[in-house]
């Protein structure tokens, strides 16, 4: 069976006063039915722009999708009319954001906001929609859901609002849920509640999920496959087990060395990535990570500065790829 979503050579740029921002610079990935793909990377690396492009939600101008295909169930979303895309967005693909207040209308009750979508997309009448809304709120563990559907967003806590967002996203039985850092603003116990609910519903509804985060911990427990992004590129892609067992891109290794682990043996010094995150304005020759890469420095690899490496098979795992001129496992250039 063909993957549910296939992204091929996607490039999105912003045309600004300072120049062209190469926010997403040729990324490709698949999401199978029922699969969860984690997209990991630090702020500004193009995670949000990447999925907003998939949803066709890039503000134009200044932004523009300049190349690529986004095949959803085999059809290229980038070639569809605005109306066709709206149909898919409301029904088969849904998205939740980091800040629920940006997607909740403060002057409408929670219930109204969910029922409206149900009436619009699933042709339910008012009563059916209300009953279903309460069910959805119960599904995401809103205590006393029936008594709270008529509350306004500000009467809900941050964690509850984020759960309302899933209820809304799930209202139309989407095949693909895109979650853009949905737990970044939440406390850890509230994050655990949220992840637990999403996992349960994902499995019950056999939904595909794209989960964006900067937290390598969350991805470990949630995703089947992971794409690591840096400076608008996917620099490593692997099954979740391979990624943590045999991290193969110097940036992935750098990230793993930077985080203190709750289960580390004892206090050991962190090994940060030196230098600063890249500037995405203008053309970039060479590997985008080269200015911060310890291997490039140590082995004085000239090619890193000249040619941008493409994803290529690495390690022992199936479909494990990294974009790097250096083979960190064998300690030599490719």
């Amino acid at each position, binding site marked *: 069976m063909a993957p549910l979503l296939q992204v091929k050579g996607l490039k999105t740029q912003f045309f600004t006063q300072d120049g062209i921002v190469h926010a997403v610079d040729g990324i490709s990935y698949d999401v199978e039915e029922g699969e969860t793909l984690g997209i990991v990377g*630090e*702020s500004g690396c193009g995670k949000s722009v990447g999925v907003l492009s998939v949803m066709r939600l890039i503000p134009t101008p200044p932004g523009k999708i300049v190349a690529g295909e986004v095949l959803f169930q085999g059809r290229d979303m980038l070639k569809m009319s605005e109306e066709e895309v709206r149909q898919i967005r409301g029904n088969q693909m849904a998205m939740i954001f980091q800040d629920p207040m940006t997607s909740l209308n403060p002057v409408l009750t929670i219930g109204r906001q969910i029922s409206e979508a149900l009436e619009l997309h699933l042709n339910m009448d008012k009563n059916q929609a209300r009953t279903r809304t309460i069910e959805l709120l119960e599904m995401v*563990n809103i*205590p006393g859901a029936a008594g709270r559907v008529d509350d306004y967003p500000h009467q809900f*806590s941050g*964690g*509850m609002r984020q759960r309302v967002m899933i209820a809304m996203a799930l209202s139309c039985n989407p095949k693909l849920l895109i979650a853009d850092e949905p737990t970044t603003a939440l*406390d*850890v*116990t*509230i*994050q*655990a*509640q949220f992840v*637990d609910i999403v996992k349960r519903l994902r499995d019950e509804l056999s939904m595909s999920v794209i989960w964006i985060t*900067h*937290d*390598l*911990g*969350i*991805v*470990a*427990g949630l995703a089947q496959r992971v794409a690591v992004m840096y400076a608008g590129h996917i620099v490593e892609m692997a099954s*979740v*087990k391979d990624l*943590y067992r045999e991290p193969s891109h110097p940036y992935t290794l*750098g*990230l*793993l*060395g*930077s*985080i*203190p*682990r*709750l*289960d*580390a043996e004892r*206090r050991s*010094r*962190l*090994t*940060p*990535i*030196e230098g*600063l*995150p890249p500037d995405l304005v203008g053309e970039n020759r060479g590997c985008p990570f080269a200015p911060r890469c310890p291997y490039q420095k140590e082995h004085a690899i000239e090619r890193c500065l000249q040619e941008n490496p493409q994803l290529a098979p690495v390690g022992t795992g199936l479909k494990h790829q990294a974009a790097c001129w250096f083979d960190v496992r064998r300690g030599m250039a490719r």
Partner: protein
Amino acid sequence: MTVQEQDILVRVEGLKVHFPITQGIIFQRQIGAVQAVDGLDFAIRRGETLGLVGESGCGKSTTGRAILQLYRPTAGNVYFEGENLCQVKGEKLRAMRRRMQMIFQDPYASLNPRMTIGSIIGEPLEVHGLASGAEVKERVAELLEVVGLNSYFINRYPHEFSGGQRQRVGIARAVAVNPDFIVCDEPVSALDVSIQAQIINLLEDLQARYNLTYLFIAHDLSVVRHISDRVAVMYLGKIVELTDRAELYEKPLHPYTQALLSAVPIPDPEIEERRRRIILTGDVPDPSHPPKGCHFSTRCPVMIPGTCDAQEPEFKDAGGNHWVACFRVS
């Protein structure tokens, strides 16, 4: 506690900070209080890092600020080298403040955008009479190098720097006046992972170099575990558990600490697969109406009805300097 009194730099006794909630336009009257910090007892040893963890709104920043007398406590005492700061005023307090500095979470908001990096770091030197004239510039250049910034940045403005670089400026400003004690209030929470590690290493280096004592506030339990010697866990204005770092993470005794630790994801899929989470229900209650009895009783999975929701558990040593406030632990 069994620690020698002279090893203690800061001692906090019965610390309370309540913020009044008022109503009325002309005649303000108090209708309640946010009980942000509601009775803390702990000590910080010279040269150690005491980690203070807890979820947002539990009173961590208020505790840090009250220790430095940036908020005057509603009740309780704060001793710095035996001197009761709550009773020190004016010139003397200002002089003591030199020895106690603070590093803030938000490297954007905490630096004056109209001042150059040089004057931001140099100002406290002049205020406290530690340098004047050409000395100031010399000392600032030296400090910039110490925190890993180039000294030619001295005439630049904060907006020309990244978040991590601004945090370095904030750190340089704090260490400029040779303090003994620094409250680090979520110094890495706003930074990207790779930059976080740079700043954590810098704070560790400075501690060793200047023999600093830290109160390290954070909500990230992995970061706190990494940097702290001892850790205090806060929940809704109270410290619920306090002990050595290793002991806390290996043998957490309080049900809240246990839930908190189980909620932290570990970057290893094989471990994550086997882990059992304690999922707490509900949200943290409103600190202007904390629950009766144990503040955690409304969410606690092992709450004892009639006891936990009626009386307050005492904060006491469960053995080996492992302090806990819970009826289940005796």
